[in-house]
Every structure is written in structure tokens, then in C-alpha cells.
């Protein structure tokens, strides 16, 4: 039964050869189709689907987690991995980055993405978050932002927030 549904879904897939890789992969963000791993994310424990291959090619942490010698690599793909330290919207943004190399930062998710990019060792994303947040620095938020910057050791954001405080 299940395999029949799957083949139906597969046959309904519109596959364009000219499609860009990012457009092609975009459809699979949080898509159970072909998914071989899932997460329960944040305080809300939202179930999010993903694909090991995409994650492993994005971050070495995921690579070791999903293909190493530990439980996650061996367990059933339907058993979710608990990720309590990252909220669902941030995790989804992270997946967008992993699948398409693009990310849309907002005032709401930027700090979360900064934390996540550090955790999964994605230096260029972390740098991008730093730049994004630097542009938003003001007297009110500079102390908090400095805290975050120090936690993840994002040098340029540290410098910018310090100079903001000194002014």
C-alpha cells in the first residue's frame, strides 16, 4: 500500500531537467518524501522531516551524527532526534540554507540562526548572521547582541557591538 502511494507521488513529481538544483531541492524541505531522518525541534517539539544526505553534505556535525557510529546512524528513520536547543522556525531556516544555499534572515530568526550556525559549524552562515545583526545594532540592543556574539565568538559582531556601546 505504502509503496503504491509512494510511486503515485513519484509519478506526480514534475521533473524539469533545466531546473536549478536549489529549486529542485527546495521542494524537499520538511517533506516526508524520500525522507530518512526526522527531528523533534524546540519547545513545541515540532516534527520536521529531512534527508540525511543533504544534511551530511552541509555540516560535519550532521555527517558524524547521521553516518557515524552512534545511535542516530543506526536507529529507525521514523524515530525522531530531539533538538531542544533550536526553535522550529530557526531549524526550518537552517534546512532552507542546507537545501538551497539561501537563507532569509529576519529580526526574529537571526539570533537563533547565529547560534545554530555555530553549533553545526557553518562558518559562512555564521559570518552572514553577524553582518546582518551588525547592521541592526543600536544603543538598545548592543549589550544583548554582544552577549550573543561572545558566545559564538563571532569576531566582527563583537567588534561592532563594542564600538556601538562605546559610542
Amino acid at each position, binding site marked *: 500500500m505504502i509503496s503504491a502511494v509512494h510511486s503515485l507521488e513519484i509519478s506526480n513529481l514534475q521533473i524539469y531537467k533545466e531546473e536549478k538544483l536549489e529549486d529542485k531541492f527546495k521542494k524537499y524541505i520538511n517533506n516526508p518524501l524520500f525522507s530518512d531522518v526526522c527531528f523533534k525541534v524546540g519547545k513545541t517539539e515540532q516534527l520536521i522531516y529531512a534527508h540525511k544526505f543533504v544534511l551530511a553534505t552541509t555540516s560535519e556535525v550532521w555527517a558524524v551524527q547521521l553516518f557515524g557510529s552512534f*545511535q*542516530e546512524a543506526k536507529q529507525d528513520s521514523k524515530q525522531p532526534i530531539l533538538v531542544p536547543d533550536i526553535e522550529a522556525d530557526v531549524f526550518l531556516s537552517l534546512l532552507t540554507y542546507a537545501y538551497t544555499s539561501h537563507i532569509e534572515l529576519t*529580526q526574529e530568526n537571526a539570533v537563533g540562526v547565529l547560534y545554530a550556525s555555530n553549533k553545526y559549524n557553518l562558518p559562512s552562515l555564521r559570518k552572514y548572521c553577524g553582518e546582518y545583526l551588525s547592521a*541592526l545594532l*543600536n544603543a538598545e540592543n548592543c549589550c544583548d547582541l554582544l*552577549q550573543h556574539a561572545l*558566545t559564538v565568538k563571532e569576531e566582527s559582531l563583537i567588534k561592532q557591538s563594542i564600538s556601538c556601546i562605546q559610542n
Partner: protein
Amino acid sequence: MSRKMILRVPKFQEPKRMEKSEAQRLWLLLKDAIVEVQHMNASTLSFEELYRSSYSLVIAKRGDILYTGLEEVNNHHTKNLLDKIAQAVDERFLIELNSQWQQYKLQQIMIHDILMYLDRMYVKEPQLKVFDLGMFKWKQNVLIHSQINDRLVRMLLGLIHMERNGEVIDGALMKSLIQMYVDVSLKEKETYKQEFEERFLLATSHFYKSESNLFITNNSCGAYLKKVEIRLIEEEARIKQYLDESTGPKLIKACEDELIANHMQTMIEMETGCRTMIQNDRFNELKLMYRLFQRVENGLVHLKNEFAGYVRNEGHKIVNQPENLKDPNALITSLIEIRNRFEKTLSQSFANNRDFINSVNTAFESFLNENDKLSESLALFIDKKLRGGFKDSNDQEIDVIMNKVILLFRFLSDKDVFKKFYEHYLAKRLLSGRSFSEDLERTMISKFKQECGNQFTSKMEGMFTDMRLSKDALDGFKNYLQTSVEMGKLPKIDMSVRVLTQGFWPTFPPHSCTLPPLLSQYCDLFTKYYCHAHTGRRIIWQTNIGTAEVTFRLPKKTHVLALSTYQMLIMLLFNDAEKLSLKQMAAGTSISFMDIQRSVKPLYSGKYKVLKRTPAVEKSKELSENDIFELNLNLKCKLHRIKFAATSQTDSEPERQHTRQRVDEDRKIEIDAAIVRIMKSRKALIHNDLIVECTKQLSSRFVPQTSMIKKRIENLIEREYLERFPDDRRRYRYLA
């Protein structure tokens, strides 16, 4: 104007400072996990949780708890392992050690995985990275522990020894254990080098020292060489199989030292060694020897010197062999043979190594110039070939022989002597019409030209031109005779003349003789004709190198005798006399007594005797002035035409002397020219420098003797080309 956005930074989700208790909780969680990993239970652990915990500790600046904790756990673990491993007995020891090591390495990779963030953000020099810390603890507590290290190395070396003796050992186990020394080395493989490599190399030298000494005393050199090659191949394989590649060059060097360098002298001198191999043309063994000697310092020098020495010795024997001294043909043939033989050795065994070729050439140069026979012998050899010796060879074979001749020629230091002899024999070939093929003559000459330039062959080429022009002149003369008025009065004889340009041809010693009137008249006619056609030229008749045909009428039979001009003159005397003494012959022909002797000899002592000595005496007896000859009317010969040699084939000693003298004359001129050339460009020069420069300039043609150069300098001073400096007698000045 300000549309600046206001950012509301959300509050920290986690507490800003991690409580000590929370940190402790996380560490204990991680510690338990590490212990689980050490029990190979990683698959029950959630990586996400462990990674998150270590990550949290590090960003909360509690990395120190983690790092020191890890150190302790590793310390404890390795100490436990040590006891376990040390208890293993005999061969179990290696297996236990290896299996623990393999597991330990895997565990360290997993621990590193969990603590990835610690590694990246916390660990700073000189702290060791997480994985290196694990390696270091293993080295400290297990590998270099007194219960392990010595035992391990001894067992490893024991196994290698067994393998060298032909037993089969577990290569994979060896590789893993030896690689362990490399893995626990923090930098530049220092543990591997200190603890293992050094002792391994020592054991290797020791093993091969005793093996090679024993083997070489009980086996032939060839067998030993093969053994060495096999050993070297085995060691190369050993490096690939289980040693670290950095050991490769050192191992091979140690083997080469023991197996090759230490035995080179023996391999050369031993009864079955290098000398015997060269003697017996054992190309393959020599090739192997070359290949092996090549590997060690100065190895090829030994081999090369030995070979060159042999070549010189063989050459020396050939050029001094009494039979060869008598027979130029045999001499040159044997020289070409050994040259071929050594060239084969060079190409088959010594990879045509430049140095080897050069030293063989130097050897040839030295023995070829050991005596002054060679120039003439070589010229005679070619003479024989060009007189018909090439008849049975094809173009290619001829070319090969000619090239060998050139090769030998190249080694001669007195090329001018050779040139004189060559010209001499060429002249004889051309004048007596004995040259086999003009094409071959020209090919040979063109090879000399290529080797030495135009100057060397200009005279030889001039001879060929003369031959052609003579033919034209003779045709012209015959036409002239038919139209000439005087012709009617004279009986017809067939006379052929060759006009030789003086200078192109060797100067033949001038001899005079009285020609019969008829012939004399013809000669005058030719002189008249020729000088008329070429005004300003002078003709000198060289009757001594001419030939003639004479009809010899016997009572029953008539023969035609092919004779030299002198022999003809002698025979003609018998038209008017029955018996003649040599003295009478000389008087009747005005030929010198010595030439009479030489001309008469073939007439009475050859196969067909037209003269007989009366009374008959023993053949061998020297001729004297008063010996009397008469015609041999009982001559029995089926041939109509009988040919007689003018004199003996090879030149007589006086003639040879004459050639030598001419070479010396020419040398004087060459040396004069060289001195003047040098002084003209240098203006002033010290005596020694002038000698050196002069010798250098002339070396392509001959090696001048210093005494001769000195004499020429004196001569040039007398002739006022040079003068000595008044204040420094050793310096000369050029006088323009």
C-alpha cells in the same frame, strides 16, 4: 530621514551563566558516555545529546572541566589496558596488543566526534587535540611502558628475521603494530624513529653482514649478485608491506652498504668475479653487477676501472704479439674484433654509460699508440681491402669496416704519419691500376674528410684529378701522334703516360736509368706535346714506377711478360748477351745496384723463372755484384701472359724510412706554421706557454715532441720571425 529599524533582541533562552551543578551534570553525562564508548557501546548513545552537552559546556566556558576530565578518563583507561595486554603470553601478546590498539584508535575517533566543538574552539597550543591526547596517553601508558616496548620490538624484529629466513609471517599484523609507532608520534614520527626504526636498521645491517660474508665465500660471484638483487627486491617489498615509507631510503642504504659496498673489491677480484666475467663475455652477470654497483657511491668507478684495465691489457697484448707485428692485416683485424667485442659489452652490460665508453676509448688511445707500427698497419689494411679485399662484402659490411677503420684512426696520435702512408699506398694503387673500385676509394676518403676536414684529404683528391686529367692528356697525345710528321719514321709502340702533379703525390726517390732509344724518343715526343699544351710546366720522368709488357720468345712458345720498367730494361739487355752479371746489368741500364737486386729477384726466384743463376746457387744466398744470370730457355708455363711483381709487396725498410723522413719534414713545416700563428696573435709569450699552445693546436694531427718544437723555435729565431726578450730569455717576441 531615519527609517532605521529597531531590533528587539529576544532574551537569552538559556541562563546566561551555567550553574556549576549543571556543568557537573553535563560532564558526568559525557563521562559515562566516554566510558560506554570505551566499552564499544557507542551505538546506544545519542550523538545529538552528547554533542549538544559538550557544545553547551564549551560555550558556557566550561571546556576545562571537559578537557581535564577527558585526560583523566584516558589515563585510567590506558592503565587498565596495559595490565590486560601485559598479561598476554607469547604470540597472544601481539594479537592482544593489536586488537586493543585497533579498538582504542576507533574509540578515540568517536570521542573526538563527540568533542568536536571542544577540539575546534577550546583546545589551544600547546594542548594536544582530543585525538592526539588519546594517542599520547596510549604511548605514555602502554607503548613505551617497560613491560611493552622492549618486548614488542624484540618480537617484531624476531618476526622480520624469520621472514628473511624464508618463513611466512602475518604481514597485516606487522603493518598495524609498526604503524602504531607512527600514529603515536606527535611530530616527525619521532616515536617510530626512536623506538623502532633505529633498532630495525641495526638488526638489518647485522643480518646482512653475516649473511653476505657467508654467502660470498661459498658461492660464485654471479650467484651472489643474484642473491643481492633478490634481497633488495624483498626489502623493497617489505617497505611497501609493513614499514613506514620514510624508512625506505634508509633501509635500502643499509642493505646496499652491507650487500654491495662492503663486498665490491671482493666481487671484482674473486675467482668468479668481475674479471672472469669480462674475460668470458658474461654480459648478463656484468649487467647485473653494473646495476647493483650503480646503487652505491663510487661503485661504477671500480667497475669502470676494472673494465678499462682489462681493455688496455688485451689491446696491449694484441699490438705486441709477434705474429701481429709481422702481419698488419691480422693486427687490424684483431683490433676491430676486440673493439666489436668491447662495444658489445658496453651496450649489453654497461648501458652504454658515457664514462665507460670514454675510459675504453682512452685505453684504446694508449695501446694503439704504444708503438709506431699502427699508422702504417692501418694504411696497409685499407690498402689490402681496397685492392680487392672488399670483393665479397656487401655495401653495408663495407661501411661497417670503413667505420671501424675511422674509429681506430681517431685514436691515433700521429695522424700525419698515417696520412703519409695512406697517400703512399693510394698512389701505388692508382698508378698500378690495382684499385678495386674508385667509388670505394672515394667513400673511404670522404670518411677521412668528415673526420679531419678538407686539408687532410686535398692531396688524395688531387691524385684522383690527376688520374682523370692524365687520361685526357694521353688521348690528346695519341691524336697528336697520328697527325705528327715525325711519327712516320718511328715504329709503333703503345705507350701510356700519367701526369702527376708534384705535391699531390708522394715524392718517389729520384732514380735515373737509360731508356732504350725508341722509348726515349717517345718520351721526348710526349714532353714536347704536353709542354706545348700546358706552357710553363716541366716534366720529370719517374721511370722507376712504370710498367711494361715484353714479348718473350722461346724456341717452342711465346710469352708476354708483364714487368716493371726496370725489369724490362734488364730483360732487354739479354737481346744482345747470353750471360750477364749484376754489375753488367747495372752498367747497361744505369740503374742503382740496389734496384737491380730488387728487380731481378722476382725474375729468378718466383714461381716462373725467366732468368737463372749460373752456376746455380742456394736461393737464400744474398746476391752479389758478380753473380751471373742467363735466360731460362726451359721455362715451362701454360700461361701466355706472366705477371711479375715489381718488388716485394710490402715496402722495404728504406722506403719506409723515406716515408718517415717525409713525415718529419712535414712536421717541421706544421710546427713552424703553428708557432708563427700563435705568436702572431699573442705577440709575446713565455717558452712553456708556447710549447703547450703549440702542442694543443697540433694534437689533432700528431703529438709533437718538445725537443722538436724547441729546435723549430731556434730556427725561427735564426730566420728572424721571433726574438728573445733581452731581459727575460725565456720569453719570445713576434717580429712582424
